[in-house]
């Protein structure tokens, strides 16, 4: 078969796309009317599992944009075994992420040693006022519901 000239081939590509779009619909989504479904591990927003956070400040220090704010205080927790000393723990008072600054690099999620931060594919959290993009720990905690299950460990990996 003789080679089709590139010029005609190009016309064929655009016309083919025209036909498939009319027949099968477009690749795009009419967003406000129908919701886009991002890939399950899309980096939409960072969720906080508050119970795991020890206010160790590692995420704050590793954040390139300085967009995480943590405040906490030391407090005494009941002892693990009867008759033991009360334990000293950090209590988390404030955990804010300023999404006006966040650049979604995910270093905080990587660096967290206690599995307190997770990626969620949720993306609908724009605000009319820029100050409202400072999300507190209650709001970050709500997103834990949308976090997908962790992938299965590889065979032979040590379970935590």
């Amino acid at each position: 078969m003789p080679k089709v000239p590139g010029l005609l081939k190009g016309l064929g590509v655009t016309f083919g796309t025209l036909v498939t779009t009319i027949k099968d619909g477009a690749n795009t989504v009419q967003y406000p009317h129908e919701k886009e479904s991002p890939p399950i591990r899309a980096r939409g927003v960072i969720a906080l599992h508050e119970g795991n956070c020890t206010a160790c400040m590692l995420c704050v220090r590793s954040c390139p944009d300085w967009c995480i704010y943590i405040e906490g205080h030391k407090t005494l927790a009941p002892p693990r075994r009867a008759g033991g000393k009360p334990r000293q723990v950090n209590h988390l008072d404030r955990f804010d992420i300023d999404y006006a600054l966040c650049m979604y690099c995910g270093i905080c999620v990587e660096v967290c040693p206690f599995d307190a931060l997770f990626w969620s594919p949720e993306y609908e959290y724009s605000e009319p006022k820029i100050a409202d993009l400072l999300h507190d720990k209650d709001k970050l905690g709500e997103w834990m519901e949308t976090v997908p299950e962790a992938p299965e460990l590889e065979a032979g990996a040590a379970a935590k």
Partner: protein
Amino acid sequence: MGALAIEVPYWGQSLLRVLGGVVAVLLPAGAIVYLFLFKMMSFMQSRLGPMEAGPYGSLQLVAEVGKWMQKEDLAPDHADRSIFRIAPLVVLTSTFLLVVIVPFGPEAYFTNFATGIFFGLAVASVSVIGILVAGWASANKYSLLGGLRAAGQLIAYELPMVLAVIGVVIQAGSMNMQQIVVVQNTESIFGIDWLGNPFIITQFVGFLIFMIAVQAELTQAPFDMPIAESELVSGYMTEYSGFRFLIFFIAEFATAGVFAFIASVLFLGGWAVPFSWFGWDSLADVPGWMNLVGPLIMFSKMLLLTFVIMWVRFSYPRFREDQLQTFAWKILIPLALANTAITAIMTVVF
């Protein structure tokens, strides 16, 4: 108008022609922008285009025009103000002058010049002046470069266009647009007369050259070097906003429609169907209802041709400036000259 059994006085005919001219310029422009620029381009990129304003975004044009109309009419400080303001109107005027030569039916024409196509090719060049002064008067280096590029390109591609038309004129034996239509629908190709003799078949090379030249005259991609948004912002239109930008925009797509009208007259048989289908012998036999059917035929042929123009526009990347000039001077013009010579010889031989 006599065939419709209505006697229209002279002033009425003039009024009809003015209204008809406005419709013949603006209706194709609107249809091209909505059907092709909004919808077809989106489909070719696997998206839907405007969907919010009206059903399937059909009122998007109203929204766009409304938006442009309410914008401020800005002019740069150092601009040559009066010329800056007139320039878009010059371009649009050229479009209106051009539509004058197009016949839409046996009596539905604006004027019936004996040298219609000659007049058309002459006034088509007026838009070059509008574009050149727009670029010059803007007092902006991007505008100036865009204007100069546009002038160079439009002049280069006018030659192959004229030469391609000469082939048609030789075959038709007339420069009168109405006569060109009649010849195409009464003659036959080697005795086969059920299709008449649309010049797209016997003048196929001429048709290709004409359409390429039209593409360049309209500065549509791949010939959009004068606008080249990635290097010249928007070429000669850079400093225009609001109403005056809208006029440039309308003129661009209205001219596309009018050139498609002219191409359908020259190559696709114009408003008529082959006369033998209904047993007509000459123009005088054509009944009055063709004055109503003719514009519809012309409109569908115009849509077909603008579809091709826009299809090419959405498919190809831009020519470089030197490639663009080389293509005109070294390929198209010799080819058009050869086409003219061969047509002349063939006309004498057969």
